[in-house]
């Protein structure tokens, strides 16, 4: 089937940024995998370490989803998926958000009950070069290591996410913030444990679980909003995107347009949707629609596949 829609192409300058973002995602996966191994090896029976580990494992989802999504989202629409593949990433995000909420709740209940039952965690020693070393020190070493890469990577991703208007990347950056916060809380928990405050470990785990729940809740809200075709917002999901109003305004400026109404949705990073226009008369309508379409698409680099729908009036039929 020939689809009368050009596949979307990122502008040249954005393509460079996208390359960097992909490289960052790969670096994140490499570092987080090494962190998962190190934290897993030193986990012992510490609740805080378990919480950090789960947070770190789940933080693999955003970069993986981003890489998979950006691999497929350029595919042109076809018979089976006539709207293209740009929404693929959203599915990954919904599942990641649900996983975050589930694990966050699990850690919260688990460490909460440890606290209530006053179960003091027993941390053994391990043999290193013929000496017995308390595993807690190794945990702190592992946690310090787990703090540094996400701290730096998260900060490198944030400006890219804004430039590319890539919510997947933004989620990734947010998750990295959660990672290093969790690591620091873990360090405090284990240090407290070393000083004989048995509850410090469980309290740190609870703080981490709240952080995970917060991440999960924000992601769930965002992904549900996108799946529900909520009006576009900025990359942090805080403010309304001005682009739909701009498009509407531009169309209303056309002398043959009497009235216009625009609705847009986010397909990943791309904005798509319809513009309903009421033409003053029907002469050369097809040419004019083509012109309106070119105009609407030129307002912002993210606009793509805008349908201009001529209607007699904007009143409800």
């Amino acid at each position, binding site marked *: 089937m020939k689809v009368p829609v050009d596949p979307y192409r990122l502008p040249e300058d954005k393509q460079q940024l996208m390359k960097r973002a992909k490289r960052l995602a790969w670096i994140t996966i490499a570092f987080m995998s090494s962190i998962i191994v190190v934290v897993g090896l030193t986990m012992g029976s510490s609740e805080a370490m378990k919480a950090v580990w789960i947070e770190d494992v789940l933080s693999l989802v955003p970069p993986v989803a981003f890489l998979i999504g950006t691999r497929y989202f350029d595919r042109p629409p076809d018979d089976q998926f006539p709207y293209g593949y740009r929404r693929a990433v959203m599915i990954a995000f919904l599942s990641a958000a649900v996983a975050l909420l589930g694990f966050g709740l699990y850690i919260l209940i688990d460490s909460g009950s440890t606290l209530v039952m006053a179960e003091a965690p027993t941390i053994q*020693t391990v043999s290193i070069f013929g000496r017995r070393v308390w595993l807690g020190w190794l945990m702190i070493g592992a946690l310090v290591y787990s*703090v540094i890469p996400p701290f730096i990577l998260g900060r490198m991703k944030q400006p890219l996410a804004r430039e590319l208007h890539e919510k997947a990347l933004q989620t990734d950056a947010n998750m990295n913030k959660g990672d290093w916060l969790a690591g620091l809380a873990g360090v405090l928990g284990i240090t407290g444990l070393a*000083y004989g405050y048995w509850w410090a470990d469980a309290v740190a785990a609870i703080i981490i679980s709240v952080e995970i729940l917060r991440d999960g809740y924000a992601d769930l809200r965002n992904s549900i909003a996108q799946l529900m075709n909520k009006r576009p917002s900025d990359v942090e999901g805080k403010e309304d995107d001005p682009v739909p109003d701009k498009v509407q305004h531009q169309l209303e400026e056309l002398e043959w347009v009497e009235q216009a109404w625009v609705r847009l949705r986010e397909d990943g990073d791309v904005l798509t949707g319809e513009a309903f226009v009421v033409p003053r008369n029907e002469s050369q309508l097809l040419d004019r629609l083509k012109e309106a379409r070119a105009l609407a698409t030129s307002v912002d680099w993210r606009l793509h596949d805008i349908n201009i729908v001529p209607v007699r009036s904007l009143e409800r039929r």
Partner: protein
Amino acid sequence: MSPNSRARVIKSSSAYALGLFILCLSVACSNLPRDPKETLRSVQTRPLRVGLVEHAPWVVRTTGEPAGVEVDLVRQFAGSLGTTPEWHWGGEQEQLEALQDYQLDLVIGGFTDRTPWRKYVGLTSAYFTETYRVGVQGPPPLESVKGAQVAILRGEPAAAELEQKGAVVVRVDDLSQVTGAVAAPDWQLEQLGRTGTNIELDSVKHVFAVPPGENGFLKRLDEFLYGKTGDIKGRLQQQVSMK
């Protein structure tokens, strides 16, 4: 370098500094970790309360003083702390419940790290690994026990593995009376003058039980036991030959 990236470098180096600071702080205090319930400190001024669960040759009940490999180790450990052991005989459940509630400082009884009690009490690191295998008298080495007669001490759990491997299991009360193949831990095979084959049945890691969360006491005990690992085999053989 843009102001933005400079700020980033400053922030990331402060994260490093914080991490290093915490690490130095912790390593500098060599008396860490501490016990939440101060076990290590209080046993300096009172006896070490030790729960005993009978399990020869680890913990052996005699008419006089308790004996056994683990009992001897605890005596030495108490000596190294400048205290004396106070023995409490009892069953496994009551002893470990008392330990969980900090009414005992230590429980021994040939425990391995597989004990389901590990959820409720603390365990030391494994101080001795006991490997059960099939031993024969001289060559030729046995390749498989399928259909072969193998003797094992009555009541040994490793018999299940033997059965699974298709051996004809003979349960006996005294392995030294057996002339054919036997299944026993390495140290015992050596004592019986058997050659260990590659047919491994089980491997168990021996531990002591300590009160939950008493990490300072546990570390001290781990350090003590680690230094004794090499003697355990000899002590076991000595214990068995005394019987």
